């Protein structure tokens, strides 16, 4: 799957997709390839605040657990509760049905400047 162009990426292998004040957050294909089958995602409560690059949850495969770090700071207004019973969606398509949280922020533009574009992210993962 090619890295979608219209998003921004963090070096913790998360993506951010902006739509007005709401930013959708997920993990990249590179992340799910390294993790293997995702078996559980520990998501935060709706209403919680998160700062940019802070831990907001955990993602588990059979044999590993990784922290999730938000590429965007703000208030969590929605979480993908489908994942509680169908964590496989993250593997199916981490960029659409496998989304994790939606964050509300009035400050999206300046935060995005701290993230990479698709080309830069591809360069990073090529090295790893």
């Amino acid at each position, binding site marked *: 799957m090619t890295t979608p162009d219209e998003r921004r990426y963090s070096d913790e292998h998360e993506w951010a997709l902006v739509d007005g004040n709401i930013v959708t957050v997920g993990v990249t294909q590179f992340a799910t390839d390294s993790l293997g089958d995702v*078996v*559980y995602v520990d998501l935060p409560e709706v209403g919680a605040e998160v700062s940019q690059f802070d831990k907001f949850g955990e993602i588990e*495969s059979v*044999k*590993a657990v990784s922290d999730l770090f938000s590429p965007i700071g703000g208030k969590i207004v929605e979480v993908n509760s489908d994942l509680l019973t169908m964590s496989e969606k993250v593997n199916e398509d981490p960029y659409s049905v496998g989304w994790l949280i939606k964050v509300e922020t009035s400050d999206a533009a300046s935060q995005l400047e701290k993230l990479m574009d698709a080309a830069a992210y591809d360069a990073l993962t090529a090295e790893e």
Partner: protein
Amino acid sequence: MTTNISPYIPNTEADREQMLAAIGVSSIDDLVLDIPEAHRFPKLDLRPALSEFDLTAEIGALASRNAAPGEYACFLGAGAYRHYIPSVVKSVVARGEFLTSYTPYQPEVAQGTLQVGFEFQSMICEITGMEVANAGMYDGPTAFAEGALMACRITRRHTIAVLDTVEPRNVQILDAYARHQGIEIVVIGHDDDLPDDAACLMIQSPNQFGVIEDMAALAGKAHAAGALSVASVNPTSLGMFRTPGECDVDIVAAEGQALGVPLSFGGPYVGLFACKDAHKRQMPGRIIGRTTDTKGRVGYALTLQTREQHIRRERATSNICTSTALIGLLMTTYLAVIGRTGFKKVAELCYHKAHYAASEIDKIPGFSVKTEGPFFHEFMVECPKPPHEINTSLLEDKIIGGHDMSDRSNNGMLICVTEVNTRAEIDALVSALLEIGAGR
């Protein structure tokens, strides 16, 4: 030399020479060069090796210096209980495939251990009325402590409230486990409020005095304070009494020893651990799940392993690794043999015999039964003189008396009666106490 020293070491001199040559060294000395020379090959001040014949004689001699229930009538409980262990249980646990296998990390070659473990988890859920159980912990008291720590993780609170009727030894163990985690332990009475920051209320039923607690009311009290309820129960009693599941308890621990496990001077035993389904990912210990293989056949495997130390390391739910699987097997076999009706029957036999004993002892001048509520198979007796003196006299009649509780109750003794105490034994105890009370 042509004869080996040890039957446990097959390598002969000839084998060793061949292997050393293959390795490319001339002697074992060349394989230990990293060991500081000054400390290499120390002399060990141990006794010489024993032949098997002498070994059995020496250890047999040690065993014969212990007074074993069997030769004695035993009325001792307080956390470990004498019950009849069916022969099937002992024969199953002798199977080398169960006894000498490892933790089932390779499920394809451990379906025996895994299926037994799944049965074990299922049976714990049935007897406790809880939704999910793990594959066992070290013992009841450590499982109880781990349950309280789990409540702290779930609620993110740092105080553990413990009812003052919980056995003090359990509180000592909790203290050891909680000491370095910034958690405070507060002991409260039944009428006290829970502290504000309480993560849980710890309840023991039957309690240290043998009395059945009102688990439903206590669990309700905990919930009203935003805390969880953690209950330690006697599994035999659940053949009769209301289960923690029925009482809306959140986390349950128990000592499984009473269910088919030899007394063995305190161990090895097995800690039972169960909780509500919503909390399963915070459970410590191993968990076995059912799944399918590549051919679609049902099989079992360890699951939810990301909670455990080998993956999560310092963020694990517990440091527990080796646990008590074989003892879990004993318990599973026991419950399979006594079955649905036997589980009820054992409880009833214990109950009626204990209550008979209590009513007879209460009649003895100088002795009075001091239970402050319903009891199962253990009850407190106030004695006319210190319990340890009474017990010394009872030993002369080949009776092991009850547990000395005089540190917390005036000349108090906790007497336990189970289905293995015959009427004749109970009547003999009563006669002996009568004589002792009369100044024998």
